[in-house]
Protein backbone atom coordinates (compact mmCIF):
# COMPACT_ATOMS: atom_id res chain seq x y z
CA UNK A 1 0.00 0.00 0.00
CA UNK A 2 1.24 3.51 -0.74
CA UNK A 3 2.35 5.45 2.32
CA UNK A 4 3.99 8.60 3.57
CA UNK A 5 6.03 8.79 6.75
CA UNK A 6 4.33 10.65 9.59
CA UNK A 7 6.94 13.44 9.69
CA UNK A 8 6.12 14.28 6.07
CA UNK A 9 2.36 14.68 6.63
CA UNK A 10 2.51 18.48 6.67
CA UNK A 11 4.51 18.50 3.44
CA UNK A 12 1.64 16.50 1.97
CA UNK A 13 -0.92 18.98 3.33
CA UNK A 14 1.07 21.83 1.80
CA UNK A 15 1.04 20.06 -1.55
CA UNK A 16 -2.69 19.30 -1.46
CA UNK A 17 -3.61 22.81 -0.35
CA UNK A 18 -1.51 24.30 -3.14
CA UNK A 19 -4.01 22.77 -5.60
CA UNK A 20 -7.33 22.92 -3.78
CA UNK A 21 -8.81 23.97 -0.46
CA UNK A 22 -7.99 21.49 2.26
CA UNK A 23 -9.82 21.07 5.55
CA UNK A 24 -8.35 19.14 8.47
CA UNK A 25 -9.45 18.62 12.09
CA UNK A 26 -7.47 20.93 14.36
CA UNK A 27 -7.34 21.09 18.17
CA UNK A 28 -8.80 24.18 19.75
CA UNK A 29 -7.41 25.66 22.93
CA UNK A 30 -9.98 23.87 25.04
CA UNK A 31 -8.73 20.57 23.64
CA UNK A 32 -11.74 19.85 21.45
CA UNK A 33 -11.28 19.60 17.70
CA UNK A 34 -12.91 21.37 14.78
CA UNK A 35 -12.41 21.35 11.02
CA UNK A 36 -10.38 24.26 9.74
CA UNK A 37 -9.14 25.39 6.38
CA UNK A 38 -5.54 24.23 6.25
CA UNK A 39 -2.78 26.79 6.43
CA UNK A 40 0.87 25.91 6.39
CA UNK A 41 2.12 24.69 9.76
CA UNK A 42 -1.29 23.69 11.10
CA UNK A 43 -1.22 20.39 12.87
CA UNK A 44 -3.88 17.72 12.45
CA UNK A 45 -5.72 16.83 15.65
CA UNK A 46 -4.78 13.51 17.24
CA UNK A 47 -8.21 13.46 18.90
CA UNK A 48 -10.87 11.04 17.85
CA UNK A 49 -13.60 13.30 16.56
CA UNK A 50 -14.59 16.89 16.07
CA UNK A 51 -17.19 18.55 18.31
CA UNK A 52 -19.37 19.37 15.33
CA UNK A 53 -19.87 16.75 12.69
CA UNK A 54 -18.55 17.09 9.16
CA UNK A 55 -22.02 17.60 7.65
CA UNK A 56 -21.37 21.36 7.37
CA UNK A 57 -19.19 20.73 4.32
CA UNK A 58 -22.14 19.55 2.26
CA UNK A 59 -25.10 20.87 4.26
CA UNK A 60 -23.92 24.11 5.86
CA UNK A 61 -25.68 25.53 8.91
CA UNK A 62 -26.81 28.50 6.82
CA UNK A 63 -26.82 28.98 3.08
CA UNK A 64 -28.28 31.41 0.61
CA UNK A 65 -30.79 29.70 -1.70
CA UNK A 66 -31.94 32.58 -3.88
CA UNK A 67 -32.30 36.34 -3.97
CA UNK A 68 -35.33 38.40 -4.92
CA UNK A 69 -35.62 41.95 -6.17
CA UNK A 70 -38.95 43.52 -5.32
CA UNK A 71 -40.03 46.40 -7.48
CA UNK A 72 -43.58 47.60 -6.81
CA UNK A 73 -45.79 44.64 -7.66
CA UNK A 74 -43.00 42.93 -9.60
CA UNK A 75 -40.67 40.20 -8.40
CA UNK A 76 -37.38 39.17 -9.95
CA UNK A 77 -35.92 35.82 -8.90
CA UNK A 78 -32.11 35.75 -8.91
CA UNK A 79 -30.38 32.37 -9.10
CA UNK A 80 -27.28 32.94 -6.98
CA UNK A 81 -25.89 29.42 -7.33
CA UNK A 82 -22.28 29.05 -8.41
CA UNK A 83 -20.26 25.97 -9.17
CA UNK A 84 -18.41 24.99 -5.99
CA UNK A 85 -14.60 24.85 -5.99
CA UNK A 86 -12.88 21.50 -5.54
CA UNK A 87 -11.96 20.76 -1.95
CA UNK A 88 -10.59 17.97 0.20
CA UNK A 89 -11.70 17.02 3.72
CA UNK A 90 -8.90 15.06 5.34
CA UNK A 91 -9.24 13.02 8.51
CA UNK A 92 -12.97 12.26 8.51
CA UNK A 93 -13.84 9.39 10.84
CA UNK A 94 -15.77 6.29 9.75
CA UNK A 95 -18.97 7.42 11.49
CA UNK A 96 -19.03 10.80 9.76
CA UNK A 97 -18.15 9.17 6.44
CA UNK A 98 -21.21 6.94 6.76
CA UNK A 99 -23.32 9.98 7.63
CA UNK A 100 -22.65 11.32 4.13
CA UNK A 101 -24.20 8.26 2.53
CA UNK A 102 -27.22 8.74 4.80
CA UNK A 103 -27.51 12.42 3.87
CA UNK A 104 -27.15 11.38 0.21
CA UNK A 105 -30.32 9.30 0.55
CA UNK A 106 -32.18 12.48 1.49
CA UNK A 107 -30.60 15.19 -0.62
CA UNK A 108 -29.75 13.19 -3.74
CA UNK A 109 -33.19 11.53 -3.92
CA UNK A 110 -35.43 13.03 -6.61
CA UNK A 111 -35.83 15.93 -6.87
CA UNK A 112 -32.06 16.27 -6.34
CA UNK A 113 -30.98 19.11 -4.05
CA UNK A 114 -28.56 20.98 -6.32
CA UNK A 115 -26.96 22.90 -3.46
CA UNK A 116 -25.93 19.71 -1.68
CA UNK A 117 -24.98 17.87 -4.88
CA UNK A 118 -22.77 20.74 -6.02
CA UNK A 119 -20.65 20.45 -2.88
CA UNK A 120 -20.75 16.67 -2.88
CA UNK A 121 -19.51 16.55 -6.49
CA UNK A 122 -16.61 18.87 -5.76
CA UNK A 123 -15.59 17.51 -2.34
CA UNK A 124 -13.17 14.62 -1.84
CA UNK A 125 -13.61 12.82 1.47
CA UNK A 126 -10.41 11.34 2.84
CA UNK A 127 -11.14 9.31 5.94
CA UNK A 128 -8.90 8.31 8.82
CA UNK A 129 -9.12 4.86 10.37
CA UNK A 130 -9.70 4.92 14.13
CA UNK A 131 -7.16 3.41 16.49
CA UNK A 132 -8.35 4.77 19.82
CA UNK A 133 -12.16 4.55 19.98
CA UNK A 134 -13.88 6.34 22.86
CA UNK A 135 -16.28 5.01 25.47
CA UNK A 136 -19.12 6.83 23.73
CA UNK A 137 -18.48 5.08 20.40
CA UNK A 138 -21.02 2.59 19.03
CA UNK A 139 -20.56 2.78 15.27
CA UNK A 140 -20.27 -1.00 15.05
CA UNK A 141 -23.92 -1.20 16.14
CA UNK A 142 -24.75 0.19 12.71
CA UNK A 143 -22.36 -2.08 10.84
CA UNK A 144 -19.56 0.47 10.53
CA UNK A 145 -15.96 -0.76 10.69
CA UNK A 146 -13.92 2.12 12.17
CA UNK A 147 -10.68 0.42 11.13
CA UNK A 148 -11.73 0.43 7.47
CA UNK A 149 -13.68 3.66 6.92
CA UNK A 150 -15.73 4.55 3.86
CA UNK A 151 -15.16 7.83 2.01
CA UNK A 152 -13.46 8.40 -1.32
CA UNK A 153 -10.06 7.41 0.04
CA UNK A 154 -9.08 6.04 3.44
CA UNK A 155 -5.93 6.68 5.43
CA UNK A 156 -4.48 4.27 8.00
CA UNK A 157 -1.79 5.04 10.55
CA UNK A 158 0.64 2.57 12.05
CA UNK A 159 2.16 5.25 14.24
CA UNK A 160 5.09 5.93 11.92
CA UNK A 161 3.39 6.06 8.54
CA UNK A 162 0.12 6.99 6.90
CA UNK A 163 -1.12 4.46 4.31
CA UNK A 164 -3.52 5.42 1.51
CA UNK A 165 -6.26 3.28 0.01
CA UNK A 166 -8.74 4.37 -2.67
CA UNK A 167 -12.40 3.40 -2.14
CA UNK A 168 -13.62 4.74 -5.48
CA UNK A 169 -12.52 6.60 -8.61
CA UNK A 170 -12.51 9.99 -6.95
CA UNK A 171 -10.32 8.62 -4.18
CA UNK A 172 -7.97 7.03 -6.73
CA UNK A 173 -7.67 10.36 -8.55
CA UNK A 174 -6.79 11.98 -5.23
CA UNK A 175 -4.08 9.41 -4.51
CA UNK A 176 -2.76 9.70 -8.08
CA UNK A 177 -2.49 13.46 -7.60
CA UNK A 178 -0.16 13.02 -4.61
CA UNK A 179 1.56 9.78 -5.68
CA UNK A 180 4.88 11.50 -6.26
CA UNK A 181 5.08 12.05 -2.50
CA UNK A 182 4.11 8.47 -1.62
CA UNK A 183 6.10 5.25 -1.63
CA UNK A 184 5.31 1.59 -1.24
CA UNK A 185 5.15 0.44 2.35
CA UNK A 186 4.86 -2.73 4.38
CA UNK A 187 1.44 -3.02 6.09
CA UNK A 188 2.30 -5.79 8.56
CA UNK A 189 2.36 -3.50 11.60
CA UNK A 190 -0.77 -1.74 10.35
CA UNK A 191 -2.75 -4.98 10.22
CA UNK A 192 -1.84 -5.71 13.84
CA UNK A 193 -3.04 -2.25 14.86
CA UNK A 194 -6.31 -2.79 13.02
CA UNK A 195 -6.82 -6.11 14.76
CA UNK A 196 -6.03 -4.47 18.09
CA UNK A 197 -8.57 -1.71 17.44
CA UNK A 198 -11.27 -4.25 16.59
CA UNK A 199 -10.56 -5.97 19.91
CA UNK A 200 -10.92 -2.65 21.75
CA UNK A 201 -14.27 -2.05 19.98
CA UNK A 202 -15.58 -5.35 21.31
CA UNK A 203 -14.83 -4.30 24.89
CA UNK A 204 -16.35 -0.83 24.74
CA UNK A 205 -19.31 -0.17 27.09
CA UNK A 206 -21.77 0.10 24.16
CA UNK A 207 -20.37 -2.80 22.15
CA UNK A 208 -23.44 -4.95 22.66
CA UNK A 209 -26.02 -2.32 21.73
CA UNK A 210 -28.35 -3.93 19.20
CA UNK A 211 -30.67 -2.62 16.49
CA UNK A 212 -32.67 -5.86 16.49
CA UNK A 213 -35.67 -4.21 18.14
CA UNK A 214 -35.91 -1.43 15.55
CA UNK A 215 -36.84 -0.89 11.94
CA UNK A 216 -39.88 0.07 9.90
CA UNK A 217 -41.93 -2.99 10.79
CA UNK A 218 -42.17 -1.88 14.44
CA UNK A 219 -43.66 1.52 13.67
CA UNK A 220 -46.91 1.41 15.62
CA UNK A 221 -45.44 -0.68 18.45
CA UNK A 222 -42.71 1.85 19.23
CA UNK A 223 -44.84 4.92 18.51
CA UNK A 224 -47.39 3.86 21.10
CA UNK A 225 -44.84 2.82 23.73
CA UNK A 226 -45.57 4.19 27.19
CA UNK A 227 -41.86 4.71 27.78
CA UNK A 228 -41.72 7.97 25.81
CA UNK A 229 -43.24 9.89 28.73
CA UNK A 230 -40.43 9.03 31.12
CA UNK A 231 -37.70 9.25 28.49
CA UNK A 232 -38.74 12.71 27.35
CA UNK A 233 -39.68 14.08 30.76
CA UNK A 234 -36.48 16.06 31.32
CA UNK A 235 -35.83 17.03 27.69
CA UNK A 236 -35.20 20.77 27.52
CA UNK A 237 -35.90 20.97 23.80
CA UNK A 238 -32.56 22.73 23.34
CA UNK A 239 -31.83 21.00 20.04
CA UNK A 240 -28.14 20.39 20.84
CA UNK A 241 -28.47 16.72 19.84
CA UNK A 242 -29.77 17.69 16.40
CA UNK A 243 -27.05 20.26 15.82
CA UNK A 244 -24.12 17.98 16.68
CA UNK A 245 -25.73 15.01 14.95
CA UNK A 246 -24.07 14.12 11.63
CA UNK A 247 -27.31 12.75 10.16
CA UNK A 248 -29.89 15.30 11.37
CA UNK A 249 -30.88 17.17 8.23
CA UNK A 250 -34.13 18.98 8.99
CA UNK A 251 -34.06 22.51 7.73
CA UNK A 252 -35.94 25.76 7.74
CA UNK A 253 -36.27 28.29 4.93
CA UNK A 254 -36.42 31.96 5.89
CA UNK A 255 -36.25 35.27 4.10
CA UNK A 256 -34.15 38.25 5.16
CA UNK A 257 -34.83 41.76 3.96
CA UNK A 258 -31.48 43.42 3.33
CA UNK A 259 -33.11 46.75 2.60
CA UNK A 260 -31.94 46.25 -0.98
CA UNK A 261 -33.78 43.06 -1.84
CA UNK A 262 -34.68 39.80 -0.18
CA UNK A 263 -32.25 36.98 0.56
CA UNK A 264 -33.73 33.53 1.05
CA UNK A 265 -31.74 31.28 3.40
CA UNK A 266 -31.85 27.67 4.34
CA UNK A 267 -30.71 26.94 7.89
CA UNK A 268 -30.57 23.91 10.13
CA UNK A 269 -33.72 23.40 12.10
CA UNK A 270 -34.59 20.99 14.88
CA UNK A 271 -37.59 18.72 15.35
CA UNK A 272 -37.01 19.31 19.08
CA UNK A 273 -38.21 22.93 18.78
CA UNK A 274 -41.78 23.83 19.68
CA UNK A 275 -42.48 25.85 16.54
CA UNK A 276 -41.03 23.27 14.13
CA UNK A 277 -44.48 22.05 13.12
CA UNK A 278 -46.49 25.05 14.30
CA UNK A 279 -48.94 26.49 11.78
CA UNK A 280 -51.38 29.36 12.00
CA UNK A 281 -54.17 26.90 12.73
CA UNK A 282 -52.41 24.48 15.05
CA UNK A 283 -49.46 22.26 15.85
CA UNK A 284 -49.23 18.55 15.07
CA UNK A 285 -46.60 17.99 17.78
CA UNK A 286 -47.68 20.11 20.70
CA UNK A 287 -45.73 18.49 23.52
CA UNK A 288 -42.02 17.82 24.06
CA UNK A 289 -42.95 14.14 24.31
CA UNK A 290 -44.18 14.19 20.72
CA UNK A 291 -41.15 16.13 19.50
CA UNK A 292 -38.72 13.89 21.39
CA UNK A 293 -40.46 10.78 20.04
CA UNK A 294 -40.28 12.15 16.50
CA UNK A 295 -36.49 12.48 16.60
CA UNK A 296 -35.84 8.92 17.74
CA UNK A 297 -38.65 7.37 15.70
CA UNK A 298 -37.17 9.06 12.64
CA UNK A 299 -33.71 7.58 13.18
CA UNK A 300 -34.73 4.13 14.38
CA UNK A 301 -38.02 3.44 12.59
CA UNK A 302 -39.11 5.92 9.90
CA UNK A 303 -35.74 6.27 8.15
CA UNK A 304 -35.15 2.49 7.92
CA UNK A 305 -38.77 2.06 6.78
CA UNK A 306 -38.02 4.30 3.79
CA UNK A 307 -34.40 3.25 3.15
CA UNK A 308 -34.21 -0.54 3.03
CA UNK A 309 -33.55 -0.93 6.74
CA UNK A 310 -30.70 1.56 7.01
CA UNK A 311 -30.79 3.44 10.33
CA UNK A 312 -30.42 7.20 10.63
CA UNK A 313 -27.66 6.98 13.27
CA UNK A 314 -23.94 6.28 12.87
CA UNK A 315 -23.00 5.82 16.55
CA UNK A 316 -20.58 8.76 16.68
CA UNK A 317 -21.50 9.41 20.30
CA UNK A 318 -21.70 13.20 20.02
CA UNK A 319 -25.21 13.37 21.51
CA UNK A 320 -24.02 11.21 24.41
CA UNK A 321 -21.37 13.71 25.40
CA UNK A 322 -23.31 16.90 24.62
CA UNK A 323 -26.87 16.47 25.91
CA UNK A 324 -27.28 18.70 28.99
CA UNK A 325 -29.61 16.19 30.66
CA UNK A 326 -27.62 13.12 29.60
CA UNK A 327 -30.44 11.71 27.51
CA UNK A 328 -29.43 10.08 24.26
CA UNK A 329 -30.24 7.55 21.58
CA UNK A 330 -28.49 4.74 23.46
CA UNK A 331 -30.77 5.18 26.48
CA UNK A 332 -33.77 5.29 24.17
CA UNK A 333 -32.71 2.12 22.37
CA UNK A 334 -32.16 0.28 25.64
CA UNK A 335 -35.51 1.43 27.05
CA UNK A 336 -37.44 0.43 23.92
CA UNK A 337 -35.61 -2.84 23.42
CA UNK A 338 -38.02 -5.68 22.72
CA UNK A 339 -36.95 -8.64 24.83
Amino acid at each position, binding site marked *: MLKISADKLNDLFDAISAKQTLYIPVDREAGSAEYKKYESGMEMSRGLNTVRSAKDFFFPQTEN*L*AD*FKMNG*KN*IEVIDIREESEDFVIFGVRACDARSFTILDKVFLAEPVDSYYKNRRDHGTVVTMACTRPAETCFCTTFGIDPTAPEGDAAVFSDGENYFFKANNEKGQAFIDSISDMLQDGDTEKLEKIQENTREIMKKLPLANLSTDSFGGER*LMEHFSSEKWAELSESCLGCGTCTFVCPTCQCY*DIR*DFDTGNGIKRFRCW*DSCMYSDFTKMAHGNSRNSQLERFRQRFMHKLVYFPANNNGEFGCVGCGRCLSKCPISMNIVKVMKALEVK
Partner: protein
Amino acid sequence: MNNDTLIPLVGVITDIRQDTPDVKTFRVNALEGGKVFEHMPGQCAMLSIPGVGEGMFSITSSPTNKEFMEFSIKKCGCLTTWLHAMDVGQQITIRGPYGNHFPVETELKGKDLLFIAGGIGLAPLRSVINYVRDNRANYGDVQIVYGSRSKDDLVDYKEIIDEWMADPNIQVNLTIDNPQEGWDGHVGFVPNYVKELNPSTNKTVLVCGPPIMIKFTLAGLKELGFTETQVYTTMELRMKCAVGKCGRCNIGNKYVCKDGPVFRFDQLDELPDEY
Protein backbone atom coordinates in the same frame (compact mmCIF):
# COMPACT_ATOMS: atom_id res chain seq x y z
CA MET B 1 -26.49 23.80 -13.01
CA ASN B 2 -29.85 22.05 -13.27
CA ASN B 3 -33.03 23.74 -12.12
CA ASP B 4 -33.69 23.34 -8.43
CA THR B 5 -37.24 22.96 -7.15
CA LEU B 6 -36.43 25.37 -4.29
CA ILE B 7 -35.95 28.21 -6.77
CA PRO B 8 -39.47 29.39 -7.58
CA LEU B 9 -41.10 30.75 -10.72
CA VAL B 10 -43.00 34.02 -10.84
CA GLY B 11 -46.74 34.28 -11.41
CA VAL B 12 -49.13 37.20 -11.44
CA ILE B 13 -52.49 37.66 -9.73
CA THR B 14 -55.02 38.34 -12.48
CA ASP B 15 -58.26 38.20 -10.48
CA ILE B 16 -59.32 38.24 -6.84
CA ARG B 17 -62.74 37.11 -5.65
CA GLN B 18 -63.93 37.68 -2.08
CA ASP B 19 -65.69 34.37 -1.40
CA THR B 20 -66.44 34.72 2.30
CA PRO B 21 -65.50 37.26 4.97
CA ASP B 22 -62.16 35.46 5.41
CA VAL B 23 -61.65 33.52 2.16
CA LYS B 24 -60.47 34.95 -1.12
CA THR B 25 -59.91 33.08 -4.36
CA PHE B 26 -56.87 34.22 -6.32
CA ARG B 27 -56.42 33.64 -10.02
CA VAL B 28 -52.77 33.09 -11.00
CA ASN B 29 -51.27 33.30 -14.47
CA ALA B 30 -47.76 33.00 -15.85
CA LEU B 31 -46.26 36.39 -16.71
CA GLU B 32 -46.61 35.57 -20.40
CA GLY B 33 -50.20 34.37 -19.85
CA GLY B 34 -51.57 30.86 -19.45
CA LYS B 35 -50.75 28.58 -16.54
CA VAL B 36 -47.41 28.49 -14.73
CA PHE B 37 -47.51 24.68 -14.78
CA GLU B 38 -49.96 21.77 -15.17
CA HIS B 39 -51.28 19.75 -12.22
CA MET B 40 -53.70 16.97 -11.25
CA PRO B 41 -56.70 17.40 -8.89
CA GLY B 42 -55.54 17.44 -5.27
CA GLN B 43 -51.99 18.59 -5.96
CA CYS B 44 -50.54 21.65 -4.27
CA ALA B 45 -48.19 24.55 -4.93
CA MET B 46 -45.85 26.61 -2.78
CA LEU B 47 -46.82 30.26 -2.96
CA SER B 48 -44.62 32.98 -1.59
CA ILE B 49 -44.18 36.66 -1.18
CA PRO B 50 -40.41 36.96 -0.69
CA GLY B 51 -39.71 38.58 2.65
CA VAL B 52 -43.06 37.49 4.08
CA GLY B 53 -43.04 33.72 3.80
CA GLU B 54 -43.88 30.69 1.74
CA GLY B 55 -46.70 28.23 2.22
CA MET B 56 -48.31 25.18 0.64
CA PHE B 57 -51.79 25.68 -0.86
CA SER B 58 -53.99 23.26 -2.72
CA ILE B 59 -54.78 24.21 -6.29
CA THR B 60 -58.55 24.68 -6.28
CA SER B 61 -59.02 25.04 -10.03
CA SER B 62 -59.40 21.95 -12.16
CA PRO B 63 -56.61 20.92 -14.56
CA THR B 64 -59.29 21.03 -17.25
CA ASN B 65 -59.15 24.81 -16.91
CA LYS B 66 -56.54 25.61 -19.53
CA GLU B 67 -56.32 29.34 -18.90
CA PHE B 68 -55.36 29.86 -15.26
CA MET B 69 -54.93 28.35 -11.81
CA GLU B 70 -56.95 29.34 -8.77
CA PHE B 71 -56.21 29.20 -5.05
CA SER B 72 -58.89 29.66 -2.37
CA ILE B 73 -57.08 30.94 0.69
CA LYS B 74 -58.39 31.58 4.17
CA LYS B 75 -56.92 34.51 6.07
CA CYS B 76 -55.35 32.73 8.96
CA GLY B 77 -51.73 33.68 9.66
CA CYS B 78 -48.91 35.97 8.60
CA LEU B 79 -48.54 34.98 4.94
CA THR B 80 -52.25 34.61 4.24
CA THR B 81 -52.95 38.03 5.76
CA TRP B 82 -50.41 39.50 3.33
CA LEU B 83 -51.93 37.57 0.42
CA HIS B 84 -55.37 38.93 1.33
CA ALA B 85 -54.00 42.47 1.14
CA MET B 86 -52.82 41.98 -2.47
CA ASP B 87 -54.29 43.73 -5.48
CA VAL B 88 -54.66 42.41 -9.00
CA GLY B 89 -51.34 42.74 -10.83
CA GLN B 90 -49.26 41.70 -7.82
CA GLN B 91 -46.63 39.13 -8.66
CA ILE B 92 -45.99 36.16 -6.38
CA THR B 93 -43.54 33.29 -6.55
CA ILE B 94 -44.90 29.83 -7.21
CA ARG B 95 -43.36 26.35 -7.38
CA GLY B 96 -44.88 22.95 -7.90
CA PRO B 97 -46.95 20.96 -8.50
CA TYR B 98 -46.30 18.95 -5.36
CA GLY B 99 -47.67 15.76 -3.90
CA ASN B 100 -49.88 12.99 -5.18
CA HIS B 101 -53.44 13.58 -6.37
CA PHE B 102 -56.90 12.09 -6.12
CA PRO B 103 -56.89 8.96 -8.33
CA VAL B 104 -59.33 10.46 -10.84
CA GLU B 105 -58.00 8.38 -13.72
CA THR B 106 -57.73 5.08 -11.84
CA GLU B 107 -59.53 4.16 -8.62
CA LEU B 108 -62.23 6.83 -8.94
CA LYS B 109 -63.03 6.17 -12.59
CA GLY B 110 -66.49 4.74 -13.17
CA LYS B 111 -67.40 5.13 -9.49
CA ASP B 112 -70.34 6.89 -7.87
CA LEU B 113 -68.74 9.77 -6.01
CA LEU B 114 -69.71 11.46 -2.76
CA PHE B 115 -67.87 14.67 -1.92
CA ILE B 116 -68.07 15.85 1.68
CA ALA B 117 -66.57 19.22 2.55
CA GLY B 118 -66.58 21.61 5.46
CA GLY B 119 -65.60 25.28 5.23
CA ILE B 120 -62.35 25.95 3.38
CA GLY B 121 -62.07 22.15 2.97
CA LEU B 122 -63.98 22.61 -0.27
CA ALA B 123 -60.87 24.16 -1.88
CA PRO B 124 -59.02 20.92 -2.76
CA LEU B 125 -62.26 19.07 -3.60
CA ARG B 126 -63.43 21.79 -5.99
CA SER B 127 -60.55 20.81 -8.30
CA VAL B 128 -61.81 17.23 -8.39
CA ILE B 129 -65.48 18.22 -8.69
CA ASN B 130 -64.85 20.38 -11.74
CA TYR B 131 -62.52 17.78 -13.22
CA VAL B 132 -65.31 15.21 -12.87
CA ARG B 133 -67.88 17.63 -14.35
CA ASP B 134 -65.61 18.16 -17.36
CA ASN B 135 -65.16 14.40 -17.81
CA ARG B 136 -68.70 13.54 -16.71
CA ALA B 137 -69.06 10.35 -18.78
CA ASN B 138 -66.18 8.72 -16.87
CA TYR B 139 -67.97 8.77 -13.53
CA GLY B 140 -71.25 7.54 -12.05
CA ASP B 141 -73.54 9.49 -9.71
CA VAL B 142 -72.07 12.62 -8.17
CA GLN B 143 -73.27 13.95 -4.83
CA ILE B 144 -71.80 16.91 -2.97
CA VAL B 145 -72.46 17.56 0.71
CA TYR B 146 -71.04 20.89 1.75
CA GLY B 147 -71.42 22.72 5.03
CA SER B 148 -70.10 25.82 6.68
CA ARG B 149 -70.53 27.93 9.80
CA SER B 150 -72.97 30.23 8.02
CA LYS B 151 -74.38 31.03 4.60
CA ASP B 152 -71.71 33.68 4.20
CA ASP B 153 -68.93 31.16 4.87
CA LEU B 154 -69.80 28.83 2.00
CA VAL B 155 -66.80 29.14 -0.30
CA ASP B 156 -67.52 29.48 -4.03
CA TYR B 157 -71.23 29.84 -3.26
CA LYS B 158 -71.93 31.48 -6.61
CA GLU B 159 -70.36 28.63 -8.56
CA ILE B 160 -72.24 26.13 -6.39
CA ILE B 161 -75.62 27.81 -7.08
CA ASP B 162 -75.10 28.80 -10.71
CA GLU B 163 -73.27 25.75 -11.98
CA TRP B 164 -73.26 22.75 -9.65
CA MET B 165 -76.88 23.04 -8.46
CA ALA B 166 -78.01 23.83 -12.00
CA ASP B 167 -76.33 20.67 -13.26
CA PRO B 168 -78.99 17.92 -13.48
CA ASN B 169 -76.27 15.28 -13.20
CA ILE B 170 -75.12 16.40 -9.76
CA GLN B 171 -76.90 16.31 -6.43
CA VAL B 172 -75.85 19.12 -4.11
CA ASN B 173 -76.74 19.21 -0.42
CA LEU B 174 -75.78 22.33 1.51
CA THR B 175 -75.96 22.90 5.25
CA ILE B 176 -74.97 25.59 7.72
CA ASP B 177 -74.22 25.16 11.42
CA ASN B 178 -76.92 27.51 12.80
CA PRO B 179 -80.23 28.96 11.51
CA GLN B 180 -79.80 32.23 9.66
CA GLU B 181 -82.14 34.79 8.11
CA GLY B 182 -82.42 34.26 4.37
CA TRP B 183 -81.45 30.58 4.60
CA ASP B 184 -84.17 28.02 4.01
CA GLY B 185 -81.82 25.12 3.44
CA HIS B 186 -80.60 22.48 5.87
CA VAL B 187 -79.23 23.47 9.25
CA GLY B 188 -76.83 21.23 11.18
CA PHE B 189 -73.31 19.89 11.23
CA VAL B 190 -71.91 18.05 8.20
CA PRO B 191 -71.38 14.63 9.87
CA ASN B 192 -74.99 14.50 11.09
CA TYR B 193 -76.32 15.67 7.73
CA VAL B 194 -74.41 12.90 5.95
CA LYS B 195 -76.05 10.35 8.25
CA GLU B 196 -79.50 11.87 7.59
CA LEU B 197 -78.90 11.71 3.84
CA ASN B 198 -78.02 8.04 4.22
CA PRO B 199 -76.01 7.78 0.98
CA SER B 200 -75.63 4.45 -0.78
CA THR B 201 -72.58 2.52 0.42
CA ASN B 202 -71.67 1.92 -3.24
CA LYS B 203 -70.21 5.40 -3.32
CA THR B 204 -66.57 6.35 -3.09
CA VAL B 205 -66.14 9.24 -0.68
CA LEU B 206 -63.79 12.24 -0.81
CA VAL B 207 -63.81 14.23 2.40
CA CYS B 208 -62.00 17.40 3.44
CA GLY B 209 -62.59 19.90 6.22
CA PRO B 210 -61.54 20.73 9.76
CA PRO B 211 -59.96 17.70 11.53
CA ILE B 212 -62.90 17.36 13.94
CA MET B 213 -65.38 17.32 11.05
CA ILE B 214 -63.35 14.66 9.21
CA LYS B 215 -63.18 12.54 12.35
CA PHE B 216 -66.94 12.57 12.99
CA THR B 217 -67.77 12.20 9.30
CA LEU B 218 -65.63 9.08 9.05
CA ALA B 219 -67.28 7.63 12.16
CA GLY B 220 -70.71 8.38 10.68
CA LEU B 221 -69.81 6.79 7.36
CA LYS B 222 -68.67 3.65 9.15
CA GLU B 223 -72.02 3.51 10.98
CA LEU B 224 -73.71 3.65 7.57
CA GLY B 225 -71.65 0.69 6.41
CA PHE B 226 -68.82 2.39 4.50
CA THR B 227 -65.34 0.92 4.83
CA GLU B 228 -62.10 2.87 5.15
CA THR B 229 -60.93 1.74 1.72
CA GLN B 230 -63.79 3.76 0.19
CA VAL B 231 -62.90 7.07 1.81
CA TYR B 232 -60.19 9.52 0.70
CA THR B 233 -59.04 12.69 2.35
CA THR B 234 -56.32 15.28 1.88
CA MET B 235 -54.01 16.42 4.66
CA GLU B 236 -52.19 19.58 5.59
CA LEU B 237 -49.17 19.99 7.85
CA ARG B 238 -46.43 22.58 8.07
CA MET B 239 -44.04 22.40 5.13
CA LYS B 240 -40.89 24.21 4.05
CA CYS B 241 -39.36 22.26 1.16
CA ALA B 242 -42.41 20.45 -0.30
CA VAL B 243 -40.24 17.54 -1.47
CA GLY B 244 -39.75 15.37 1.63
CA LYS B 245 -36.41 16.74 2.78
CA CYS B 246 -36.99 19.48 5.37
CA GLY B 247 -38.36 16.91 7.80
CA ARG B 248 -41.49 18.36 9.34
CA CYS B 249 -44.68 17.25 7.58
CA ASN B 250 -44.31 13.53 8.26
CA ILE B 251 -46.99 11.31 9.71
CA GLY B 252 -44.97 8.27 10.71
CA ASN B 253 -42.70 7.51 7.77
CA LYS B 254 -44.94 9.24 5.22
CA TYR B 255 -44.40 12.83 4.17
CA VAL B 256 -47.62 14.70 3.49
CA CYS B 257 -45.86 16.84 0.86
CA LYS B 258 -44.72 13.99 -1.36
CA ASP B 259 -46.44 10.76 -0.20
CA GLY B 260 -49.68 12.75 0.32
CA PRO B 261 -51.52 15.03 0.58
CA VAL B 262 -54.17 12.54 -0.57
CA PHE B 263 -54.56 9.45 1.62
CA ARG B 264 -57.14 6.71 1.81
CA PHE B 265 -58.30 6.06 5.36
CA ASP B 266 -57.01 2.51 5.39
CA GLN B 267 -53.57 3.99 4.61
CA LEU B 268 -53.89 6.53 7.42
CA ASP B 269 -54.91 3.73 9.76
CA GLU B 270 -51.44 2.23 9.42
CA LEU B 271 -49.85 5.49 10.53
CA PRO B 272 -49.62 7.15 13.94
CA ASP B 273 -52.44 9.51 14.87
CA GLU B 274 -50.13 12.54 14.83
CA TYR B 275 -51.86 15.15 12.68
